[in-house]
Structures are given as C-alpha cells and as structure tokens.
C-alpha cells in the first residue's frame, strides 16, 4: 500500500530520492510529489533571484524537478544523500540556459516590437492581494516607497538612494525593517 502524504513527510530527502531512483516510472508518484513539495519553493526562490521574473521562476521549478526525477530514474544521481545539492546544481545549470534564452527573446523583442510586453502579475501568488495592499498602506511612507521601488519597480539600492536622497546603506536598513513589518502584518506576526 503506498505511503500517504502524512507518512511521507517523515521520510528523509535521501530516502525519497532512493525510492524514486529504484521505482518504475508511474509507481513513485507520491514520492515525487513530496520531493516536489519540498524543493519547488526553493527553486522558485532561486529562480526569482536569478531570472528576475516570477513566471520564469515557476517554469524553472517545474523543469528542474522533472529533470531531477528523470535523472534519478536513470541512476544519474550518484549521491542521493546529496539530493539538495543536485537540485541546486540543476537549478544553476538550467537558469543559465534560461537567461541566455531570455536575452535572445529580449533582443528579438527590441528588434521587432514597438513596445515591451506588459508584465502580467503572477497568477500563482498564494497571498491575498487586497490584504497585502492593506499592509503596504500601513507601512510608513518611506518604508513603503522603498519596498515598492525594490520589489515592484525592481530598482537596486543605489538608484533608490539617489531618488530618495538617502544613502544606499539607509535604503537597505529601511528595507529590512519594512519587510519585517510587512511580513508580520500579512502573516499575522506568527513568524519570527
């Protein structure tokens, strides 16, 4: 009888990887789903940082985990006890390829399109936008501006600093404080 989600939660990453490696395709769906649940958020975070695009980060997470399952079944993962390192390495490799592809797309868009494509909000955001908007409103004016310029307008600290007439170090301090407050507001202060 296959393991339930609850029992799989207690299984180590290494054991999940070994089960997938030792199973036939289709017979380890629960183990693959559990490994995906554990690592896809990490790949998404990695993808957002390196690809600067949430949709591309979602795609990267899917591609990386699918490739990981294939490599496990093909016995190409030599150290299942290091499955996290393998997934990180695969993320790095695939992100490089995605960046190259994105640059080609941008070059083509610059040549053949009059205006850049609008950036659609990610459809996969789990948090409630009105609640986050309310928490953004509750921030101090400068804190909110720094957060919005960083994570909405994608500006880095030196540029924000120049716009706001403060130092890049001050921007970082404000951003740390603001994100802590925003997190506490959105998540109800349940996290440290």
């Amino acid at each position, binding site marked *: 009888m296959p393991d339930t989600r609850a029992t799989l939660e207690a299984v180590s990453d290494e054991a999940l990887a070994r089960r997938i490696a030792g199973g036939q395709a289709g017979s380890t769906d629960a183990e693959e789903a559990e490994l995906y649940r554990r690592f896809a958020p990490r790949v998404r975070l990695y993808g957002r940082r390196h690809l600067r695009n949430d949709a591309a980060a979602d795609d990267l997470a899917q591609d990386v985990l699918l490739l990981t399952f294939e490599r496990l079944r093909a016995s190409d993962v030599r150290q299942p006890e290091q499955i996290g390192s393998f997934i990180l390495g695969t993320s790095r490799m695939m992100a490089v390829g995605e960046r190259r592809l994105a640059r080609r797309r941008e070059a083509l868009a610059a040549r053949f399109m009059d205006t850049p494509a609008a950036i659609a909000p990610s459809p996969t955001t789990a948090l409630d936008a009105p609640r986050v*908007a309310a928490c953004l409103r509750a921030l101090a004016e*400068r804190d909110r501006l720094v957060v919005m310029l960083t994570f909405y307008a994608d500006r880095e600290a030196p540029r924000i600093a120049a716009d706001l007439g403060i130092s890049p170090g001050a921007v970082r301090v404000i951003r740390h404080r603001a994100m802590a407050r925003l997190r506490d507001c959105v998540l109800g202060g349940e996290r440290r």
Partner: protein
Amino acid sequence: MTASGCERIALADLTDYAAGELSQTEAAAIEEHLFACAGCAVRAAEFNALVRAIRPAVHTAEVGGFVTDELLNQLSREGVRVRTFALSPGTVVPCAVWEGDELMALRLRGDFAGAGEFTLLQRVGGTEVSRVRGEVTAGEHDEVIFAIPASWVRQLPIVDIDVLLTAHEGGVERPVGRYTLVHAGSLAR
C-alpha cells in the same frame, strides 16, 4: 550572515537576497544552505511568497501614498490607468474621475526649499479624512507626488477635496500649499 551550519538565515539576508543585492559568494552561501536545510527553506518560501505578492498588491492600485515618477511609470507600463493632476499651491481644479481610472496621481508643486519631511492632510467637504506624515524628497520638478486610489474618490459624493501640504524643517512646520479638487462625481464615457 547566518547561513552557515544549521543556523537560521536572517530575514535581512533573505531580503537582500530577494532584492538581488548580495555578492555572488553571499548569495551562493544562502542557496547552499537553503537546499540543505528544510526549516530555513520553509521560511524562505514564505518570504518569497510575500515578495511575489507585492507586485499584484501594488497592481490593485489600492496602495496609494507618496510615490515617485518611476513607480508611476511602472504602473502605467503594466496597464494601470493613472489620471494625473498637476497642482500648484492655491489651485482649484475640477476633479474628473472616469469609470476606467484606477489611480489618481497628484503632482503637488510648491516651494519645498530642501525639506525632506511632509504632512499631507486630506479634507473632504471640510472634514479631515486622512493625515499622512512621511519623509519624501521633492523631485527634480519641485514637486511631490501623492497617489490616491480612484475607487476611493469615485465613491465620494459631489464635494470638494482639499489637500494641505506642510513641510517640516528642524522642528518647524511650514505650509507648502493648499490644493483643491472639485469632485463632480464619477464620469462615464
């Protein structure tokens, strides 16, 4: 940074990581830790969800407050319909909010004389409805930009909206200007 061993990664590190402002070495150290530590990975995933939620939240045009040209430009590029009013002190202008408008941007001009902190008070029909104090830098056109959700203005009756801007310099308050929007209700094409 606290990414070594099994110590928790600090929120400040996650913030800098998400903002893309860590060195390659620092970012790689965080990544190595996250892919090995389930506990930190859960916290990082929560934080990532928060970061990702900022864009759609701002896109709702319900945030408002002091903004910059860069933010307004980004909102416009992403399809948010912004109606702009350029106002000098003492100005009284008709406030036309059309049904498709999502955000009203008030470009408040005046003599800022290097002030970096302001209070913006809004009165509707003579009654104070909000008071916002914040550290803001006047832009190159000697103006500060204040954004108001159009949905809020649209639900108002026919009424005057007064905006009073005060500068704070060294503990002294100085009026910058009073700007009046004569709201004539929501307009449809």
